[in-house]
């Protein structure tokens, strides 16, 4: 271990601001890279389920009386 105390570790001999800024920024960039595709995937499943249900409803309507075409 290179540091004697927690405050030493945080201050990094006066360079703490620079070092910690870099590490927090990196954490932010990496997290965004993970969360963005996760969110996109989640949204796809939700929206696509609605789209399929709508499509199924449309084709059911069409079978009955040929209406529902306007929904397409």
């Amino acid at each position: 271990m290179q540091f004697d105390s927690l405050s030493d570790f945080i201050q990094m001999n006066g360079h703490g601001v620079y070092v910690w800024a870099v590490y927090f920024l990196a954490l932010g960039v990496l997290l965004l890279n993970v969360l963005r595709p996760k969110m996109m995937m989640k949204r796809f499943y939700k929206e696509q389920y609605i789209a399929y249900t709508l499509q199924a409803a449309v084709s059911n309507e069409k079978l009955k009386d040929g209406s529902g075409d306007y929904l397409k």
Partner: protein
Amino acid sequence: MWNWLHKLGSPKSFFAISERLLPWFGTLALLFLSVGIVWGLLFAPPDYQQGDTARIMFVHVPASILAQSSYMMMASAGVVFLVWRIKLAEIALQCAAPIGASLTFLALVTGSIWGKPMWGTWWVWDARLTSTLVLFFLFMGIIALRSAMENRASAGRATSLLAVVGLVNLPIIKFSVDWWNTLHQSSSFSLTQKPAMPIEMWFPLLLMVIGFYFFFFSVWMMRIRTEVLIRERRADWVKRLVLTMKNKRDMKHAV
């Protein structure tokens, strides 16, 4: 081998194979990055000239390496698309661009933060810094070009071409520190030559570089998987998958 590659090129097989690979890549990324960060911050010795600011290196160097590597991989996907017209290669190219842009941004900003205490300035128009800024603009250019074009086929060709042409910038970045007299120090991290830094610094740096590679592949796969689903949404297998996921969500809510 060719058979296997051909199989991987189909979006459906890619989705299945990546589903098995992703947890491994994610776990390895997390493992390498956490060990590397703790080691770099707490146990690596301070530099004899730069003191504790040298700890910035454990983020800055891997981010810079990956910024260039991700461009290389993106451009390779562009070549594959231009030559063999493989759809998945075009998806891979589109998905690599935002990740590459974010890593280049990280490399630039961390370098700038490191530059302030060491060089006394946030930015200089030095060859290494300027060529890395050009790399960032190349990534942004590809994102912009893709979103500006409605037609998917011509957008694929245009972005692939731009990615391949931009390859010219990579050797410029790499050799900028040797060709020009720059403020940026020359490379001190290498796998093949004797490291120019103490082994106690070199080893955690190696862990971070490996961790960043696993991280890149994980998030790249995640993005490609989503894009594959969006483009194949009319296929039966995607339909079945969406319905299974819906059932799973309902089950979770019911418990």
